[in-house]
């Protein structure tokens, strides 16, 4: 059994990327779009497009009734949520089921338990994964937080249980700071996620952010497709992701894969997902969180393994078995993704949208570009500022870095008011610390403060 028609409940590059695989599978696509995306590429690309609301996401891409109605009107059998928006909303997944629509993702139950970052921590500990010393579940009060802080030792990191993607996270170096941090994060979480729960962990100052790609089918088979290193980030926002993770011993690499599969099996994970780890200088790995969605950086794994992750998401959601075993997964060469954002690093990364008078993505050997834009488009100010993902592959990491720089140099983005992160990305790739693969998650922020922002005018 497969699907004849899929509705894509997302926008921009990921909506286009999902539609591309659907076309290759012979599946009809339905796009939903807000007024701001009336002329967007993904809207034009789909076989059908439904206008579901005004620019604000809460009235369009986050509106459950609008999306469900669009699916029912168009006779879509399944909904692909992409990333962000409704992709990790267990209630939405339930409502899909209630309306006889297949949600392309894990079961609502699994989404719920991995969505609670505090709870999943304990679950993974059960499954034998190493977790950092911290609170059991969420922390009800500042006083309780201080008690735990004293117990596990400072610095501690306070995280929103409903957070993720680096939002709702703050570090407290001592008891005094913890009080304020607790107040801020709970308030932020209540406002952002409608849930003020936070939990505590010991903070690891120097570590790499390494995540493992997972695929599970309804027959209980779970395989991992290797790791991605996302240590090049600014204020917890990923700028560059790569695979394999540089400077990871085969032994640690193997262990991460085993952890990921064990953890996923423990919660009965199906579909595509990611398990995040922190890896210290000595290779000591601790579990961070599970992301129950396709990731922005999934193409890195696709270029390394040749597996089309969206295709597998769809096949698994249709009840099919995974077409390969763990042993059959091949990892070849090195892949690097650079996120090109319409932001002005010279102005504190303020979003700098505008009309793309010139938009000429790079080409040639080993280059893949995923973008929701084309020359002449206007970047709507209503949504995130990522305008393209540039992904390169090469036989070795060194060649991949050279190729990424070559491709970034080729990438022509011009227009009144438009500034991009391309110059910054090139500068970062050129840093000896990155070339040596010795950078940790703090690298970019340190680098930026040393350099000063002024140099980054596009």
């Amino acid at each position, binding site marked *: 059994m497969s699907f004849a028609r899929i509705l894509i409940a997302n926008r921009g590059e990921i909506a286009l990327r999902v539609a591309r695989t659907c076309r290759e599978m012979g599946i009809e696509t339905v796009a939903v779009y807000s*007024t*701001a*995306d*009336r*002329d*967007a*590429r993904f809207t*034009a*690309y789909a076989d059908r497009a*439904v*206008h*579901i*609301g*005004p*620019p*604000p996401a809460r*009235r*369009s891409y986050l*509106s*459950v*009734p*609008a999306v*469900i*109605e*669009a699916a029912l*009107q168009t006779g879509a059998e399944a909904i692909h949520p992409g990333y962000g928006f409704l992709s990790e909303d267990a209630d939405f997944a339930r*409502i899909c089921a209630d*309306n006889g629509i297949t949600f392309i993702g894990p079961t609502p139950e699994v989404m719920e338990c991995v969505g609670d970052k505090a709870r999943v921590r304990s679950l993974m500990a059960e499954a034998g994964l190493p977790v950092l010393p911290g609170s059991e579940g969420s922390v009800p009060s500042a006083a309780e937080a201080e008690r735990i802080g004293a117990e596990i030792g400072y610095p501690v990191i306070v995280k929103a249980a409903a957070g993720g993607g680096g939002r709702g996270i703050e570090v407290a170096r001592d008891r005094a700071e913890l009080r304020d941090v607790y107040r801020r994060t709970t308030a932020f979480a209540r406002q952002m996620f409608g849930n003020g729960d936070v939990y505590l962990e010991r903070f690891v100052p120097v570590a790499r952010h390494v995540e493992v790609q997972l695929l599970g089918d309804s027959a209980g088979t779970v395989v991992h497709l290797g790791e991605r290193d996302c240590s090049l980030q600014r204020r917890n926002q990923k700028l560059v992701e790569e695979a394999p993770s540089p400077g990871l011993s085969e032994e640690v690499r193997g262990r991460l894969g085993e952890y990921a599969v064990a953890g996923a099996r423990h919660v009965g994970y199906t579909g595509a997902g990611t398990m995040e780890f922190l890896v210290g200088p000595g290779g000591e790995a601790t579990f961070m969180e599970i992301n129950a969605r396709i990731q922005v950086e999934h193409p890195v794994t696709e270029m390394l393994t040749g597996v089309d992750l969206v295709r597998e998401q769809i096949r698994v959601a249709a009840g099919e078995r995974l077409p390969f075993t763990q042993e059959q997964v091949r990892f070849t060469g090195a892949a690097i993704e650079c996120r090109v954002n319409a932001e002005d690093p010279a102005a504190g990364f*303020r*979003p*700098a*949208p*505008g*009309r793309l008078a010139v938009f000429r993505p790079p080409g040639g050997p080993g280059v893949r570009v995923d973008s929701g834009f084309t020359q002449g*488009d*206007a*970047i*709507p*100010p*209503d949504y995130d*500022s990522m305008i393209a993902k540039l992904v390169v592959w090469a036989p070795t990491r060194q060649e991949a870095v050279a190729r990424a720089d070559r491709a970034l140099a080729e990438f022509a983005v011009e227009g*009144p*008011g438009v500034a991009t992160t391309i110059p910054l990305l090139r500068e970062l790739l050129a840093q000896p610390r990155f070339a040596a693969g010795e950078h940790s998650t703090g690298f970019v922020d340190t680098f930026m403060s040393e350099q000063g922002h002024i140099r980054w005018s596009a």
Partner: protein
Amino acid sequence: MDERTAGRPAPKATGRPAPDATGRPAPDTPGRSAPEEDAHAAMRLLREEVGNLVKTVPGPVAAISLRLGECALEVTWAFPQPAAPDLRPVAVAAADQAARPAETGPLDEAREHSSSHAVTAPLVGTFYVAAEPGAPPFVQPGDRVDAGQTIGIVEAMKLMNPVAAGHAGEVVEVVAGNGEPVEYGQVLVRLRTDDA
């Protein structure tokens, strides 16, 4: 090639940042906006300028964007011939577009009936002309309606959402059929407004 390429001005206009735009639609902060008079004059100047440009510049124009201090204006033509420009002050466009039915409806509709008022669907769903099967329709052509009067219902996920007329006037046409699926912004009923 497969990609549909129907050009419509509305989204282009929203994409245009004000000179000091943060990227998000600029809220009306009284501190920043110039006094009413100047703004009005400036906007008129820009509007006239569009006319002049189209006349003087060679070849078919696709888009024109003007800025004078606080006032920014952009025109993008749906088709590459200088048609009657559909002017739109930019900074505010994105913000209150949803509140302006005639704008969120398909452009040709909006153009054709510049004097009329189109009541559009506030959400995706199924349109009903009456409160229940067999009941008389809320409105019929020729009926007079007051502002705020219900002209129909859009059902979304079992929820009945009454749709109200934005202005008082006379019902010219009930465009959407009973039980018909409608998209956001789709024209349901067209009125001839009293002040028209």
